[in-house]
C-alpha cells in the first residue's frame, strides 16, 4: 500500500479499531472464503454462479484468479468485496466475518480494508482525477486537506500529477486505470481486489498497470486479481483456476514477472 509520508508503496497496516471490534484470530490470513454459494434468478432457470468456493489468501500474497467467461470470477470478487450477498458460506477479511455485518458495518469494513479496481475503471466523469481519488478518502472520514494531499501524492507516485485536474474523459485508458488504482489505494486497504484491470487496455496501458501491481506486491500489498491474461497472471505468486462456479485447483508461478 501507499505511505504518504515517504511517498512509497509500503506494506498495509491492519485497522485496529475494526479488527478489535470483531475479535480476529491472532495471525489470520488476509482473506478466508469457505463454502461460498450464489445463485441468480433468471427468466428461464436459476444460474448457479458459485457452487461452493473455498479460498485463502495470505497477508502480502498476490493471487491471480483465472477462468473462462461465466465461470464466476467476477461474482466471487463482488461477494468478497461485499458488493453483493452470498446465499451460503462465509467470507473473512482481516479476520472479520463479513456475512454477519450490517450494510453500514460492511461499508466501513470495505473503506478500511478493501480496495477495488474494475476493468472499466468506474471513475466519476463529473469529477477531476484528483477529486475521484480524494472522494474515497473523504468517504472514509479524512479531512479535506488530508484527502486532497493524499490524492495528490498518490497521483504523483503513479505519474499522473499533471493530469490531476483533468476529467477522466480526457485521459487514456492506462491513465484512467492508474487513477482508479490510486482511488483504490486512497484508504490504504489491506486487500486489493482487481477485476480484469488490464482487460480494457491496449498493450502499453496493460503493461503500465501490470507493472504497478507488481510494484505494489513487492512492498507487501495483498492482491487478488481476476484476469484472462496469462502474462499478467504470471506475475502473481499463485494462479487459481475456476470453472462453472468452483475452483479447480491452483499452481504456483515462477514469479518471473515479479
Amino acid at each position, binding site marked *: 500500500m501507499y505511505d504518504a509520508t515517504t511517498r512509497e508503496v509500503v506494506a498495509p497496516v491492519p485497522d485496529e479499531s475494526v479488527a478489535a471490534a470483531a475479535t480476529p484470530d491472532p495471525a489470520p490470513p488476509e482473506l478466508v472464503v469457505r463454502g461460498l454459494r450464489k445463485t441468480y434468478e433468471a427468466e428461464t432457470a436459476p444460474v448457479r454462479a458459485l457452487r461452493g468456493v473455498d479460498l485463502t489468501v495470505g497477508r502480502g500474497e498476490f493471487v491471480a484468479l483465472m477462468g473462462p467467461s461465466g465461470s464466476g470470477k467476477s461474482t466471487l470478487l463482488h461477494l468478497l468485496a461485499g*458488493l*453483493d450477498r452470498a446465499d451460503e458460506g462465509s467470507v473473512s477479511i482481516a479476520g472479520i466475518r463479513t456475512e454477519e455485518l450490517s*450494510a453500514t458495518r460492511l461499508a466501513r469494513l470495505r473503506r*478500511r480494508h478493501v480496495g477495488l479496481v474494475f476493468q472499466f475503471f468506474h471513475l466519476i466523469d463529473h469529477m*477531476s482525477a484528483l477529486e475521484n481519488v480524494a472522494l*474515497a478518502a473523504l468517504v472514509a472520514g479524512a479531512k*479535506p486537506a488530508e484527502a486532497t494531499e493524499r490524492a495528490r501524492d498518490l497521483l504523483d507516485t503513479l505519474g499522473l500529477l499533471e493530469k490531476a*485536474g483533468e476529467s477522466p474523459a480526457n485521459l487514456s485508458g492506462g491513465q484512467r486505470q492508474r487513477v482508479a488504482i490510486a482511488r483504490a489505494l486512497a484508504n490504504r486497504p489491506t486487500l486489493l481486489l482487481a477485476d480484469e484491470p488490464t482487460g480494457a487496455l491496449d498493450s502499453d496501458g496493460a503493461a503500465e498497470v501490470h507493472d504497478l501491481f507488481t510494484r505494489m506486491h513487492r512492498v507487501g500489498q495483498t492482491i487478488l486479481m481476476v484476469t484472462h491474461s496469462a502474462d499478467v497472471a504470471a506475475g502473481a505468486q499463485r494462479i487459481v483456476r475456476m470453472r462453472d462456479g468452483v475452483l479447480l485447483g491452483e499452481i504456483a508461478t515462477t514469479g518471473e514477472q515479479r
Partner: protein
Amino acid sequence: MGGGGFGAVRAVARAELRTGWRALLLMALVFGLVGGIATGAIALAERTATAYPRLVEAVALDDARVLVAADQPQLAAAVPSLPGVAEVRTDQAWIAQIDGPALRFVSIGAPTTQHDDLVRPVVVAGRMPAREAPDEVLLSESIAADSGLGVGSRITLRMLTLQQVSMFDVGFGPPAGPTTQVTVVGIGRMPTWGGALAAVQAGPAFAAKFLPDIVGYAIYARFAPEPDAAQRFGAAFARTAAVVDQISPSVVAQYVPHSVELPGAAVDPAVRAAEQVLVGGLVVFVIVLGLGGLQVLGQSLLRHHSARRATQRVESALGMDVVERTAARVLAAAGAGVVAGIVGGAVILAAGWLEPLGSQARFEPAPGFRPQWELVIIGGLGIGVVFLMTVAVTAAVAGRAQQPTVTRPRPGGTRLLRRWPAALLGTRLALHGRVGRRGLPAGTTAVAASLAIAGVVAAVALGASLERLVDTPARYGQGADMTIVDAREADVGRLVADPRVAALDVGASGTATLADGTPIETTSREVRKGSLPVALAGGRLPVGHDEVAVGPRAASTLGVNVGDTLDIRRVHGGTSTLRIVGVAVLTSQNNGAVGDGLLVAPTVMRELVPGQPLFDAAVVAAPGAADALYAELAQNLEVFPRQVPDAVRNLGDLVTLPEILALVLAVVAGAGMVHALLTAGRRHAREVAVLSVLGATPGQVRSTLAVMAAATVVPALVVGVPLGLGAARVLWWQLATATGVAGDLAVPWRLLLVVVPAVLAGALLLSLAPAKRAARTPPAVALAGG
C-alpha cells in the same frame, strides 16, 4: 430503412411497450390534459372574441336608430321615405318611474305592429311579450340586474307626461301619466341598450293601450345595400329635422337631440378594450401553458429514452438505423398518443360549457353548452400527433451516438462542499450532469425548473393582485357603499347626522381643459363626515390651492408623475400651474372609467371647471347598516349601490386564469420535477454504486441523493422566485395602468414562505425513493448495468 425491417421495429416496439407503458401512459395523460386545457382555452378565447359579432348577427342588428319627440310626429312620419332606407320600424316610447327595490326611471318601447326582423333581442330567460298582452314586458339584462327583477316579477310603471319630461332638470313631482302593472315575461340581450332602444320592451297591445300618452318615437331603420346609404340618410334626417324644428319646435328638444345612432357601424371602444384584455389574457395563458407542457413532455420523454440508451446501442449494433429505432419507439407510444388525443379532445369538448369571459359574457347569443367540434377533432388529433412527434424527436436525440464531451471539470466547489463527500458528489451530479452520459443536460433541467417555478410564482402573484383589486373597492375608486346622484344639501345634512353613516364625501365633477386644449374630467371631494377610503398609487391627496392628484391612467397618458406640474386653463382666463402631489384612483361618475382625470381641492374646482358641476354624495355605512340604509334611501333618492366598473369586472373574471395557470404549471412542473428526482437514482446508479464501492454507508448514499435533490431544486427556487415576482410586477404594472388602478403588486409572501420550504422538503422526501432503491440494489448489479 436499414437491415432490420419492420419485423425488428415491431419486436423492439413490443419490448419498449412492455417495460415502459406505465411511463408513456402517465405522460400521455398529463400531456393530453395540459394540451386539452390549452386548446380549450383557445376555444374559450374564440367564444369570447366572437361573442359580440355573433350577437350582432343573432339579433339582425338594425343599421340606424333615431329618437323623435312625440310633439313632432311629422318628423317620425318622414323617416321611412328618407333616402337610403330599405325598411323601418317605428315604436312608441314612454318614460316611466318603476317601483321596486330602488327608485329608477326607465324608457319603454313598443311597436304598433310586430317587426321581429329589426328589433329581435336574444331572449336569455322567459319569452317575448305576447302581441295581444298589454301587461307583459321584456327587460334588458342590465335593468333586470340593477333593479333586482326577473321573469315573473310584477312591476308598477308610473309614466311621465311629455310636459314632465321637459322639466327633468328642475323637478317635476310625482309622475302624472297613466299607471299600470306589468309582468316581466322575459329578459333580453342586445349588443347595446339605451338611446333609442328602450330597456323595457312591450308588445303591440301595450302600444295601443297607451298610445295617447307617448313621449316619443323610437325609429329603427335598415339601409338599402348602397355604399353611401348611411351618409345620405343622416344628411336627409338632419335637413328634415331642421325644417320640422322651424315649423313645430319640440318642448323636449334639449333631451331629444336629432342625431342618428349607428349601432352596427363601430364596436363600442369599451367592448373592444374588454375583448382585448380578456382574449389577450387567454392567449398568454395558452402560450405559457402550451410551451410549458411541451417542454416538460420533451424533458420527460428525453429522460425516458435516455434511460434506455444502452438498448438503442444494442439495436444499433444489430443493424437497426436511427429511423427504425425511432419508428419502434413511436410505434410503442402509438397507444399513448391515442390516449393523449382522446383526453385532450374530451377536455376541449368540456370547455364548451365555459361562457365568454368577463363583460363579454353579456354578449353571448347562445348561452350554455357550445361544443366546437372542429376544434375538438383537430385539437385531439393535434395533441396526439404532437405527442408522437415529441416521442420521435426525443427518441432520436437520445439514441444519437455521441462522443463523450471532453471538458475540464470545474473547480471542486466551496470548502464546505469538499468537507462532506455527499455534498461534493450530490451537487456535482445535480449540476454537472452531461447529455453525453446520462440523459438530460443538468443545465436544461435547471433552466426548465426555474422557468416553471417563475411561471407558478408569477401566476400566483398576478392572481393575488387581481383578487386584492376585486376585493378592495377603494382600489378601483369605489370606496363608498353607495352614491347618491345629484345630492341636495338637505339630504347631505340629514345623512351626516345619521349614525348609520360612517363617512360621507360630497363630490363635484366637471370637465376642465388643459393648457393645450385637451378636455379632462376633474373631480373634487369634500369630506363631510369620517374618512372615505381613497386608493393612492403614490404621493398624497391634494389639499392646497396649487395641488392636484392624477389618476394612474391619466398619469400614463399625460406622461407625468408625482412632482411634475400640470397647466390647466382657468374659467376666467389664464392658466393655473398645479403641482402633482399624488396618483389617486377615482372612478368617473359620468362613464364609469377608472383612473382617468384629475382630483383637486374643492376651492380649485370652481376656478377650473366652467358651469355647474355634477354633485354626488359618496356614503360609507356603519358596519352592518349598508343594506338597510340603501333600501331606505332608494325609496326617495336616486341612489346607486357600489358599481364594479366593467374594466375591473373583466379583470375580476380573469382571476381564475392565473389560478388555473398556477395550478396546471405546478402540476406539470411538479410532475417533471418528480420524474427527474425519482429517476435520478436510476440515471446515477453507477455513480452511487461507485460511492458504495468506496465504502459509503447507506446513510451517506441517502445523503448524496438528498443533496442531489436539493441541488436540483434550490437553484430553481433561488432563480425562479425572484424571476417570477419580477415578471409579475411588470405584467401587473402594465395591466393596472391600462385599467387605471394602482400598479403595486400583491406579493403572496405567506404562500411563498410556505411553498419554498415545502418544495425543498418535497424534493428531499422524493429523494428517499431512489435512495431506498439504491440501498436495495447491490452495487455489483448497478455497476454491471452501467
